[in-house]
């Protein structure tokens, strides 16, 4: 089969089984777009800004496990994609980004819409390629998908100059079935000796905690994680990225840990004598002050990336490998093992944890006459029966979502954990809805975050992706305001906007349904109405308490044992600017 470079890219995507291509056309990719025009197999989703394309593709990947694919033009198209690429990189999301480039003859001459995309993205991709020969396209694309989806996943950029996709130059094309990269061999099984060591420590623990993260979601190892946790009857906590990998409604789940984690999860970590860390990277939002992190614990760490081992916290038994394979190895050693955990020690440990649980650290004022953001998430959880896909933006609403929507299944909680990208939620919801058209998809956001990618409301209409936007509108950048309250004597420097659009009118202008909710008793009916409108995107603008804070909180520079709790529900806090 003889094809032009542009046709090869599109044919390759079809052969790779790519369902959706999220993109935006421009000069350097016109040949490619012409090739897209002539086929129906790869469906192109036209976003309104390239950042939206990357977030939608990223979320599609998070919700399905399949790589997200993006197509942007050179120059500003490429730079607009960078935030989304970095977002995917920080959360290890498999993504392939095809960017147009100026023709090879003018690369380096500061040509119109030229940027050094390979140079700009180098620090935020797993790898990137510049294709300089039409004969290399198929193999380079294969490498890109292979690298993006294996080992620790991540985004891969393929930069293609315009002349390489010239419709007049045709070369033979064959889908490359196999590829080998001599410098790249992702880890598979764990070292058997390390597994035995780990299991011995695991069974001898007196105060164990299982601490698992996004790696379990990415590695599709929820079933194994759940089995091993049930087998041992140990307490388990999840990171923000790991929520859903273990059912949140299970009694062994002690909640999320870290900066806004539960009292019981953080104290269990602090008091533990053994930690089984699975697919986590000891992020600073999880560990708090490193010098005081888990002072009594022996740590076993399972991760696919050797560079994650002992990066910030020294571990005692590292196991490098694919989490699913390693957990299966551990399970078979465990089942053969004669020893069982000490029932006495474990029951003493559980009774301490139950005492911490009684603090009820997430409780909030349920009698408030203004809408509490927590109450909205709680009722969203009830209305959707806990079975929706939830995307979020970044800030207080993200933490309320993590605390109050109890994810029982993996890949349901879609948020930007590592980079913390405001603007992620709405395009992400569109990507998820395309992946799962029958499922309920909601975007929990705030009035500041939603405005960063609001233009994608137009995309949602064009592709009929009826998502529900849960806007927790407190007229503040809530998390910034909270930090200013805690650390800057409530000097709310530029953390509020004097002008906020009429979101109901805005939603309607974009062809959607807009609802404003101002009273606590109207929250539930509004949610019910929104989800009853199956084929409409609904924007619900909840006017929430301006002064609500996220608790518990570990302030920056403090350890797990130094949480700030909500003193009592309804305690008056600074309402000077309210």
């Amino acid at each position, binding site marked *: 089969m003889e094809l032009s470079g542009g046709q090869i890219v599109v044919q390759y995507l079809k052969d790779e089984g790519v369902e959706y291509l999220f993109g935006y056309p421009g000069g350097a990719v016109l040949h490619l777009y012409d090739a897209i025009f002539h086929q129906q197999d790869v469906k192109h989703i036209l976003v309104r800004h390239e950042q939206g394309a990357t977030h939608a593709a990223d979320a599609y990947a998070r919700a399905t496990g399949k790589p997200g694919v993006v197509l942007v033009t050179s120059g500003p198209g490429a730079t607009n994609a960078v935030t989304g690429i970095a977002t995917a990189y920080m959360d290890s999301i498999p993504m392939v980004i095809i960017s147009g480039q100026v023709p090879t003859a003018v690369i380096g001459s500061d040509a119109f819409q030229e940027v050094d995309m390979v140079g700009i993205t180098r620090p935020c991709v797993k790898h990137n390629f510049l294709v300089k020969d039409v004969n290399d396209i198929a193999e380079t694309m294969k490498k890109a998908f292979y690298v993006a989806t294996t080992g620790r996943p991540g985004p891969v950029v393929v930069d293609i100059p315009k002349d390489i996709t010239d419709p007049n130059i045709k070369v033979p094309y064959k889908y490359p079935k196999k590829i080998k990269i001599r*410098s790249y061999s992702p880890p598979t099984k764990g070292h058997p000796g390390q597994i035995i060591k780990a299991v011995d420590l695991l069974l001898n623990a007196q105060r164990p905690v299982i601490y698992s993260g996004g790696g379990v979601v990415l590695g599709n190892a929820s079933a194994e994680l759940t089995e091993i946790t049930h087998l041992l009857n140990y307490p388990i906590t999840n990171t923000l990225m790991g929520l859903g990998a273990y059912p949140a409604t299970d009694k062994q789940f002690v909640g999320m840990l870290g900066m806004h984690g539960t009292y019981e999860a953080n104290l269990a970590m602090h008091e533990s004598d053994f930690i089984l860390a699975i697919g986590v990277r000891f992020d600073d939002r999880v560990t708090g002050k490193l010098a005081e992190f888990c002072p009594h614990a022996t740590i076993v760490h399972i991760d696919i990336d050797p560079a994650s081992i002992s990066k910030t916290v020294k571990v005692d038994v590292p196991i490098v490998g694919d989490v699913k394979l390693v957990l299966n190895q551990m399970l078979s050693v465990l089942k053969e093992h004669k020893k069982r955990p000490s029932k006495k020690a474990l029951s003493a440990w559980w009774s301490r944890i139950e005492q911490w649980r009684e603090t009820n650290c997430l409780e909030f004022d349920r009698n408030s006459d203004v809408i509490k953001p927590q109450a909205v998430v709680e009722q969203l959880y009830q209305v959707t029966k806990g079975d929706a896909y939830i995307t979020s933006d970044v800030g207080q609403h993200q933490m309320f979502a993590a605390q109050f929507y109890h994810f029982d299944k993996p890949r349901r909680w879609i948020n930007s954990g590592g980079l913390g990208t405001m603007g992620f939620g709405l395009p992400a919801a569109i990507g998820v809805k395309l992946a799962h058209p029958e499922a309920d998809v909601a975007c929990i956001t705030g009035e500041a975050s939603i405005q960063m990618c609001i233009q994608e409301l137009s995309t949602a209409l064009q592709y009929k992706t009826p998502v529900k936007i849960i806007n927790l509108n407190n007229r503040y950048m809530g998390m910034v305001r909270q930090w200013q309250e805690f650390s800057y004597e409530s000097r709310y420097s530029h953390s509020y906007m004097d002008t906020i659009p009429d979101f109901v009118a805005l939603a309607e202008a974009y062809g959607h349904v807009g609802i404003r909710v101002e009273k606590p008793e109207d929250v539930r009916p509004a949610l019910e109405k929104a989800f009853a409108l199956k084929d409409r995107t609904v924007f619900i603008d909840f006017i929430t308490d301006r002064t609500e804070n996220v608790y518990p909180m570990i302030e920056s520079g403090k350890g797990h044992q130094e949480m700030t709790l909500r003193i009592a529900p309804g305690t008056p806090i600074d309402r000077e600017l309210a």
Partner: protein
Amino acid sequence: MRHVISILIENEAGALSRVAGLFSARGYNIESLTVAPTEDATLSRMTLVTRGSEDVIEQITKQLNKLLDIVKLIDLADASHVERELMLVKVSTSDETRGEINRLSDIFRGKIIDVTTNSYVIEMTGASDKLDAFVAALDADSIIETVRSGPTAMSRGENGLHL
């Protein structure tokens, strides 16, 4: 502690900048870096000298190993090894100083590879501290310019860094 890391890397455009970019992005320091193609034209060999605590060096080697262009690497501090660096020094000469500079160069096993009426270019190889000692022995005012390659190194014994 000082570490010498020997790297086999794909001989491709951009490979060097991935290594340099990694060091600047993660705040590691590069004391010196030499790179040139090997007898296998698809590969380059790089010798990188860096300093850091054991933890930092461990992260450096792990992060380098993650770069797709890097085929293989070893930390030569783990084994006994030899190091050589090349230096060229241009010194100004006069009838009075020429003999003394010539003798000094001989003592350090240098070679004079360019001569004009009032200058020498001296070529010298050796361990970096020997080159330092030679520069220190010269009259500072006579030095016009120096250029050094940075150390290249390989392990002692029969084992080597190859595919």
